[in-house]
């Protein structure tokens, strides 16, 4: 039943609309006929009609369809690209954010899907991606890492590191004391310094964009480069004027006010911004942390803007509390100076002031207590800011910070850029080295080009050292001296030896850490060496050849330096590691000044360490990964004058290392690794022809860190490694006389020894070129070969029910977990991670296989996979390796590393999660992994080396003193397992030596 008033209203409206605007008033007078409300209604309808234009037109259609695409939530468990959705974390204007698991890398990530409407604005999207990519190159502990920017099913997403914790906004609610505030500000400032260095301005520093990790208080700044990219309706990120700021603030009051309070005056005015804007915003954040309220508190956004723009400085911090140090108030005042020319000019300056303040407060606190603080210091006072915290006095002996015995735990295992692990173990090659070393040794296929000839018949190789502990050698240009690194009880010293005599002297006393390269100056009077603490960037030192004090030349370099023929210039690589790594090939003056970047390689491309100058000084040669897939390496020639780089040869190797030029410029001698050989060999490359010839084919491989040549090209110096391992059984608690040697090969058990549930021995033996799995009785009889193929296998373990054997094996590009039936039949792949997976055993119920793997970002984590297959379950999301489950199935012991506490043994619940307990690493732990447990689950069992001899020890997890369980008088232990009754060990034992060799008549 139509309403007559309504019908009348429509009639009059349409009639009036049909008239010219100027005739409408007269018509309405007549039609309304005194009905004021009808007249008013029609008038307002007509007015609305004039204004409608696009009202209720296009946007909603599209919006509805777009919402069909991105409006609804992805369900937990859904697989999208290689991610598995875990849960929705939140929604923002830019899109939705999920917690997800990266199926490839087995890590948790946060996935942000960008909304369709956002993606439609091409200009905005382009700028957004450009900024996001720039930001993703930032590699800093205080900056949230961007893993990936990609697209799936028409939806654009960003995968970032997942951080469990609170935003600073949430943290502010519970009050922050001054030292914590200072620490948080220092970490934010460190992040800013890193970003500003590459000209990325955050533009939106505020408590919502700062996360504090739950576990350790590590601060992460989010959304670098992204923050302001999503301003709607305009390709420009910033507003253009103060008026626009105010208008914008008024249209969406709630949202913008949160941001306004942190805006710098120049931002509010709509001026161009630079890093000083971030300094201002950090000033506001620091102010708020200390005062408990923003310096620009106001009721409306207009008042906030007025407060920011007024000449009046905010009330001084000292007004809020007497505890606020005068100096802190000054720093904040300087950061919050309205005129940016008078503000801190760089974030570095701000950072320095904040650090100084913290230091003086710590000193003061220490003095007030009148007793020194505990050596370890509090975690908050350390601040994982990624900045060097100690400076070394010039001219003194370098003391690289101690890194405990962790080197033994992992050697220097560095996840290299393409999923390959580079190993240079310290002192002794760890079993890990064997295992990871060969990951890179084994590539699926190898193009063979060039002539491969045997060694020159006249070649003479002379050993210069016989300690078995010499590495990183170099020969002086005149051929009279050799410098090398000698390992003594875990410390490294630099030694000089006169060639042709037994005279030796120590020139740099033993220190912790590593020495990764030695080079003589051209006149032979100085030795350059690169030293670094574990997992830290290297520092280049020079020391007089005949002894004296070391002097620092350069910081933050990777590997050895190359010297130009005139002795005036250095060449070296500087790496920024991480998810997105960048290697720069840099040349500089010998005193470290005048750095100039010759070339850069960004992931997945990379340089190998150790560039070399050509004799004419016009080019630098360096190893590098070859496009398009970066699976192989070769040598690239980079002209110093900026011309195009080119490959030296078309030959490709699995891995290349150091190079030296022959003096006449006719070619290079290089260390390189051909496919399928497991050792580096010496090669010759002709120049400019690029013809390749293998010069050595030694059973003992060469170490990657050493290759040098005399000025007359008559002699080379390198370092060789020899290793030998046999399988032994030994009763617990007894001496060497009761132990029994079972095998007599060269590499027996190096890749793993284990007990079967019925007391037999499962092991890997090398026959010919192949590593296969064997079974034998505990007296060495009835040997049975279970596998017979050329895929290298490691760490076999039999399931508790005796049905299956699992092992790690390399087929194709990555090492993964495989299973087979106990008789060796029916091999099946269980995992498919991309970064190397090593199984360490079964859970006692036999249902799960425990393993660990590297992650793309260079961390390591523990996972388990069902023996039936399926997706692995991640157990830790922090750096953990070599998990071993206790026989009662309750606990996992694993190697553990974090930035603040260093290396430890961690005890973790068997279902995963944070460590229950951290135990110190035994000193001089022998390179034998994984750990074991005693059958009653009360103690951890490990091998420990003392004076070059390794024995097994048991460490009760209740913290009681460790107990020695074997009593060997010689040799090292590469691997071991304790029998289920706790009475007998099976061991891979043997020797390992590294010595310097002199090579003559090699060409």
């Amino acid at each position, binding site marked *: 039943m139509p309403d007559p008033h309504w019908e009348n209203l429509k009639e009059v409206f349409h009639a009036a609309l049909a008239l010219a605007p100027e005739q409408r008033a007269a018509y309405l007078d007549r039609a309304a006929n005194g009905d004021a409300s009808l007249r008013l209604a029609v008038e307002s309808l007509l007015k609305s009609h004039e204004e409608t234009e696009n009202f*209720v037109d296009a*946007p909603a259609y599209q919006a509805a369809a777009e919402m069909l695409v991105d409006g609804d939530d992805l369900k937990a468990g859904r697989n999208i690209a290689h991610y598995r959705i875990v849960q929705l974390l939140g929604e923002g204007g830019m899109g939705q954010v999920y917690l997800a698991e990266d199926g490839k890398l087995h890590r948790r990530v946060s996935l942000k899907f960008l909304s369709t409407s956002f993606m439609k604005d091409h200009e905005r999207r382009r700028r957004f991606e450009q900024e996001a990519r720039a930001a993703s190159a930032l590699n800093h502990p205080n900056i949230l890492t961007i893993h990936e920017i990609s697209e799936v099913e028409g939806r654009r997403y960003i995968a970032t590191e997942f951080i469990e914790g609170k935003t600073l906004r949430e943290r502010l609610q519970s009050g922050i004391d001054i030292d914590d505030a200072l620490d948080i500000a220092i970490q934010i400032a460190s992040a800013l310094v890193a970003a500003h260095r590459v000209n990325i301005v955050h533009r939106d520093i505020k408590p919502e964009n700062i996360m504090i990790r739950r576990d350790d208080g590590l601060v992460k700044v989010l959304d670098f480069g992204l923050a302001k990219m999503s*301003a709607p309706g305009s390709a420009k990120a910033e507003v253009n004027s103060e008026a626009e700021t105010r208008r914008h603030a008024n249209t969406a009051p709630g949202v913008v006010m949160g941001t306004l309070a942190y805006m710098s005056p120049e931002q509010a005015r709509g001026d161009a911004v630079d890093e000083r804007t971030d300094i201002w915003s950090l000033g506001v954040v620091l102010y708020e942390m200390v005062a408990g309220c923003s310096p620009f508190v106001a009721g409306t956004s207009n008042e906030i803007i007025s407060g920011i723009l007024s000449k009046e400085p905010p009330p001084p911090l000292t007004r809020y509390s007497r505890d606020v140090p005068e100096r802190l108030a000054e720093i904040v005042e300087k950061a919050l100076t309205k005129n940016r020319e008078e503000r801190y000019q760089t974030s570095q300056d701000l950072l320095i002031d904040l650090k100084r303040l913290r230091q003086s407060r710590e000193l003061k606190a220490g003095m007030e207590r009148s007793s020194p603080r505990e050596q370890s210091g509090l975690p908050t006072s350390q601040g994982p800011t990624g900045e060097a915290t100690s400076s070394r006095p010039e001219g003194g002996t370098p003391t690289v910070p101690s890194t405990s015995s962790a080197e033994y735990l992992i050697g220097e295992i560095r996840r290299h850029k393409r999923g390959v692990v580079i190993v240079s173990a310290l002192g002794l090659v760890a079993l890990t080295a064997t295992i990871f070393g060969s990951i890179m040794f084994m590539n699926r296929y190898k193009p063979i080009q060039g002539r491969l000839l045997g060694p020159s018949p006249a070649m003479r190789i002379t050993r210069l050292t016989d300690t078995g502990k010499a590495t990183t050698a170099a020969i002086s240009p005149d051929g009279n001296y050799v410098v090398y690194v000698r390992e003594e009880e875990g410390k490294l010293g630099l030694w000089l030896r006169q060639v042709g005599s037994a005279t030796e002297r120590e020139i740099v006393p033993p220190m912790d850490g590593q020495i990764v390269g030695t080079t003589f100056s051209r006149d032979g009077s100085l030795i350059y060496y690169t030293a670094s603490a574990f997992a830290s960037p290297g520092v280049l030192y020079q020391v007089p050849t005949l002894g004296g004090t070391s002097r620092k030349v350069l910081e933050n370099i990777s590997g050895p330096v190359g010297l130009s023929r005139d002795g005036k210039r250095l060449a070296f690589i500087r790496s920024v590691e991480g998810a997105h790594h960048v290697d720069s090939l840099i040349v500089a003056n010998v005193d470290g000044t005048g750095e100039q970047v010759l070339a850069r390689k960004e992931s997945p491309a990379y340089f190998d360490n150790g560039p070399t100058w050509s004799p004419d000084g016009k080019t630098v040669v360096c190893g590098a990964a070859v496009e398009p897939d970066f699976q192989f390496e070769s040598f690239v020639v980079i002209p110093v004058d900026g011309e195009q780089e080119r490959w030296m040869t078309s030959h490709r190797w699995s891995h290349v290392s150091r190079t030296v030029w022959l003096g006449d410029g006719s070619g290079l001698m290089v260390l390189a690794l051909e496919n399928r050989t497991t050792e580096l060999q010496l090669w010759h490359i002709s120049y400019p022809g690029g013809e390749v010839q293998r010069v050595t084919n030694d059973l003992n491989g060469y170490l990657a860190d050493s290759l040098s040549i005399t000025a007359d090209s008559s002699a080379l110096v390198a370092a060789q490694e020899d290793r030998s391992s046999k399988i032994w059984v030994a009763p617990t608690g007894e001496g060497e006389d009761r132990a029994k040697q079972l095998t007599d090969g060269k590499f027996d058990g190096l890749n793993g020894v284990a007990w079967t549930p019925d007391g037999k021995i499962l092991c890997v033996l090398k026959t010919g070129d192949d590593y296969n799995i064997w079974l034998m009785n505990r007296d060495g009889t009835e040997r049975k070969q279970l596998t017979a193929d050329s895929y290298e296998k490691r760490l076999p373990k039999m399931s508790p029910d005796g049905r299956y054997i699992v092992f790690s094996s390399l087929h194709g590009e990555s090492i993964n977990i495989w299973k087979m039936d106990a008789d060796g039949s029916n091999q099946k792949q269980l995992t498919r991670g991309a970064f190397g997976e090593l199984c360490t055993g079964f859970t006692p119920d036999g249902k799960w296989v425990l393993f660990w793997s590297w992650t793309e970002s260079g961390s390591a984590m523990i996972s388990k996979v069902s023996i039936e297959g399926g997706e692995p379950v991640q157990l830790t999301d922090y750096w953990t390796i070599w998990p071993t489950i206790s026989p009662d199935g309750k606990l996992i012991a694993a190697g553990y590393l974090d930035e603040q506490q260093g290396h430890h043994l961690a005890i973790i619940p068997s279902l995963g999660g944070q460590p229950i307990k951290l135990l110190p690493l035994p000193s001089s732990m022998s390179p034998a992994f994984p750990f074991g447990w005693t059958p009653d689950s009360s103690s951890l069992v490990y091998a420990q080396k003392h004076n070059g001899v390794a024995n097994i020890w048991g460490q009760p997890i209740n913290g009681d003193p460790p107990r020695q369980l074997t009593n060997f008088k010689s040799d090292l232990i590469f691997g071991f397992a304790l029998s289920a009754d706790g009475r007998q060990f099976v061991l891979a034992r043997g020797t390992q030596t590294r010595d310097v060799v002199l090579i003559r008549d090699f060409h």
Partner: protein
Amino acid sequence: MESAAHQVTRLLREWSDGDESSLEQLMPLVHGELHRLAHQHMRREGPGHVLQTSALINEAYLRLVDQPQIRWENRSHFFGIAARLMRRILVDDARKRNSAKRGGSLIQVPLDEAASLAQEQAANVTALDEALKRLEAIDARQGQIVELRFFGGLSIEETASVLQVSPGTVMRDWTFARAWLRTEMTSV
């Protein structure tokens, strides 16, 4: 088992025969199909492609409705349902956005100024929905026209053929309804 197309046709018929409960069964089926098609389009065309709601509905209709048994009314009913669905999706989403809280306890969501636009739009959609409900109470046909045009994305001609009135009538009603809705929304 009954095929999806057959089921949709049956439910449409039942609904046009006055069985309101069939609409509730129909909604998820149509929603699922629209959803699938929208994704397919996005995959094919890539981001930045403009999705036409009416094209989607047409495609869904062709896929879902059992052709041999087609009756003319089915089509108009189908579009009516689709438009209503779209409205529901939009309004639900807008409500969600209106009440969206910033940040989670676990992780910070990168909120930004775009949120202001989204929230502005969201507020408009809810306000429009409210106003449209009032309009529907006064003038059902005008309400339907707005639903088909604004949420269903139909042209004047398509709307006219669905409602079986002349395009001129649709045009008049549409013009009036827009003015009325705008007045209603700005005066509150």
